């Protein structure tokens, strides 16, 4: 009975002591001591954790470098592939823009039928301004058909084989086109040159030509359909001692960047040579 009492007393005292300590701790009376304790505990844990991490890095780092290198190579390959795709898509976008412009042009000029062709080469001689396109007689292309872009006239078909054709550009030195000056309402002749510049000749002296005047095909001679845009007048050379005025022309087409062109397939040039009078002895 005495033992039972002493045990109960002992238990009660322990509970009271522990409860008191808890009450004091919850009341904040042990904060400095607990801070020191937890601080030293965290310090020890940090020291142990750092060493363990260092050891882990030491043993696992070689594997990680190898895997990182492999991953890096994979990513580089993927980047290269994506860059190639970007270039390819950019090229397609450019082509699509050109084709869209050509489609818009053909829709706005429904009186003609067109055949699109890609420029695949140029004449090997620098004296000549000819391009080669990838459409030929198999596609209905015939000699003399005009060739345009959405920006204007570029030339006409000079020679045809089954799957390709050669186009004489309006910048060729042998090219000569009858044109109409829209603002001045006058006729003239557009001629090319070996340097690729084009100029107007045979402008009557009594015609007033201004820079910026629009130049269109006149249709005279039957070589080209009328009203195809060629370019604008840049400057005029007029001398009283000469029969005609001349003018420098800025073509509407950039001939250095020809990629896709349209052949007007429903136009047949008229051969007027039998009508040209010849001198008979």
């Amino acid at each position: 009975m005495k033992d039972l009492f002493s045990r109960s007393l002992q238990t009660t005292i322990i509970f009271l002591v522990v409860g008191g300590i808890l009450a004091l701790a919850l009341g904040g009376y042990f904060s400095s001591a607990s801070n020191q304790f937890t601080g030293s505990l965290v310090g020890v844990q940090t020291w142990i954790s750092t060493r363990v991490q260092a050891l882990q890095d030491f043993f696992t780092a070689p594997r990680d470098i190898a895997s990182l290198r492999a991953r890096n190579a994979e990513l580089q390959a993927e980047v290269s592939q994506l860059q190639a795709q970007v270039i390819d898509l950019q090229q397609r976008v450019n082509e699509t823009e050109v084709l869209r412009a050509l489609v818009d042009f053909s829709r706005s000029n429904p009186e003609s039928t067109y055949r699109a062709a890609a420029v695949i080469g140029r004449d090997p001689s620098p004296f000549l301004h000819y391009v080669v396109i990838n459409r030929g007689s198999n596609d209905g292309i015939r000699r003399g058909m005009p060739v345009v872009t959405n920006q204007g006239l570029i030339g006409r078909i000079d020679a045809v084989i089954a799957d390709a054709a050669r186009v004489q550009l309006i910048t060729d030195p042998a090219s000569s086109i009858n044109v109409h000056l829209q603002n001045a309402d006058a006729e003239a002749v557009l001629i090319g040159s070996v340097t690729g510049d084009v100029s107007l000749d045979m402008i009557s002296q009594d015609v007033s030509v201004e820079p910026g005047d629009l130049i269109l095909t006149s249709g005279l001679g039957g070589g080209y359909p009328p009203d195809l845009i060629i370019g604008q007048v840049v400057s005029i050379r007029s001398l009283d001692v000469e029969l005609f005025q001349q003018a420098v022309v800025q073509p509407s087409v950039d001939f250095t960047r020809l990629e896709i062109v349209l052949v007007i397939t429903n136009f047949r040039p008229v051969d007027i040579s039998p009508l040209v009078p010849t001198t008979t002895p």
Partner: protein
Amino acid sequence: MRNLIAFPLIALAVILQSAVVSRMTLLSGYADLMLILLSAWALQAQVRSAWHWALVAALMVGYVTRLPWLVTAAGYFVVVFIAQLLQRRIWQAPLLAMFSVTIAGTLLMHLMSYAALVFGGSPIPLGDALGFVTLPSLLLNLLFAIPMYAFMRDLAQWVYPGEEVE
């Protein structure tokens, strides 16, 4: 038998000339790949087929260009003739010979082209032709001459294996 390499090689040169080199302009001139190729080939001492190559080149280029075929053919034959002439004279300085053939060949080829076009009715001022076409083309031809000579020298050793070059 290895001389048959002429057909694919010249065809490739025509394609490159038309599709690539013709777009690399200096003023209004550009290099003549075929002329340089024939010059370099004809300058190789062991080569005996330069005339055949010139004929094949003239046929292929004549198929593409608007120039009269006779002008192209005559131009290439003249180039081969000059090259073989110089190869015997200044064989100790092959690059000098290459440059000489390139200069002479370009000037003659352009002179013939110019004459043919002017007689054909194209009004080309001589000053423009010389300043904007011939001289820039000559410069580009000279730039291409050295790598082409090296390539054709290696090709000649492959086509004519085991032949001693003096």
